[in-house]
């Protein structure tokens, strides 16, 4: 199963400022969990005036305890006992300043076996009206858990191994524990639960992302690029 989240809103700022704020949105007071941002590639097409950017963000996050309980130990292996973990997000964006739109797509690189999150955003200069001080935004997030697919494969393997006497103690124990965990939950139910919890998180995090952009946009309006960079320094110090 797949779950979707979508929302539309607009910023009371011109399109050009919003696209600049997008590149400058980390760090902001609402994004303390973003540890780093790197540009992996950038290409400018002089003919179309389109700018394509690929960036890599490192985010610290905590898996909700409810999700940790649903996961087999092997999947939570890289997580600290309190559920804190980190994940890489790949973000691709295309800006077309002539046509007045920006499209972005962000996806998680790790934890894909547990949950794949793809977020798409479109920023658009409203069609020729006298009012250039606003930008329309549409956001859609697609959440899909693949945990069942992984488990099904493993389960097949266990089935093949079940009669083999060579199974080591540790593996046999792990297998038994997982099968016990299976008996109470169907894979579909686990996937649905993970997607539902993640949807709730998305519903909470999206307004924060919007607030973060608003902070950067306000800094931009009040003091230009310098104010944004000064604000970033403050946000970084507070984080440390």
């Amino acid at each position: 199963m797949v779950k979707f989240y979508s929302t539309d809103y607009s910023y009371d700022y011109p399109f050009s400022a919003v696209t600049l704020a997008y590149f400058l949105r980390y760090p902001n007071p609402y994004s303390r969990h973003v540890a780093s941002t790197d540009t992996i590639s950038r290409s400018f097409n002089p003919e179309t005036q389109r700018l394509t950017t690929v960036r890599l963000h490192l985010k610290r996050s905590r898996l909700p305890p409810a999700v940790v309980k649903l996961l087999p130990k092997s999947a939570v292996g890289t997580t600290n006992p309190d559920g804190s973990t980190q994940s890489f997000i790949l973000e691709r964006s295309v800006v077309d300043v002539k046509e007045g739109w920006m499209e972005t797509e962000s996806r998680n690189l790790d934890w894909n076996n547990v949950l794949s999150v793809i977020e798409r955003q479109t920023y658009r200069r409203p069609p020729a009206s006298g009012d250039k001080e606003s930008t329309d935004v549409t956001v859609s997030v697609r959440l899909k858990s693949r945990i069942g697919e992984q488990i099904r494969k493993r389960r097949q393997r266990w089935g093949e191994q079940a009669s083999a006497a060579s199974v080591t103690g540790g593996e046999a124990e792990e297998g038994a524990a997982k099968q016990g965990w299976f008996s109470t939950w169907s894979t579909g139910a686990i996937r649905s639960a993970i997607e539902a919890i993640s949807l709730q998180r998305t519903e909470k995090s999206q307004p924060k992302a919007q607030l973060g952009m608003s902070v950067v946009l306000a800094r931009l309006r009040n003091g230009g690029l310098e104010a944004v960079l000064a604000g970033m320094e403050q946000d970084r110090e507070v984080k440390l």
Partner: protein
Amino acid sequence: MSASLAPECNVLKERYDSCFLKWYSEKYLRGNATQDECAPLFNAYKACLSKALKERGIDQMVDEARMDNKDNDAQYMKPAGG
């Protein structure tokens, strides 16, 4: 400025980011861009970053995801239209 995941690349990243932001706001957004003027600074930063990604063992993960993303290029290249 945002930090690099590789502290050893921070200086090169900051130099590039500063150049890009200036070019983006003063040239690109005004429709006056003829070329990416920050490419030399980007190449220096990229060399550092590529090495860092490799050392940390995350270069493959990134490359694979980027291949996936290429499937979406056709979609992006369409005029936004509506």
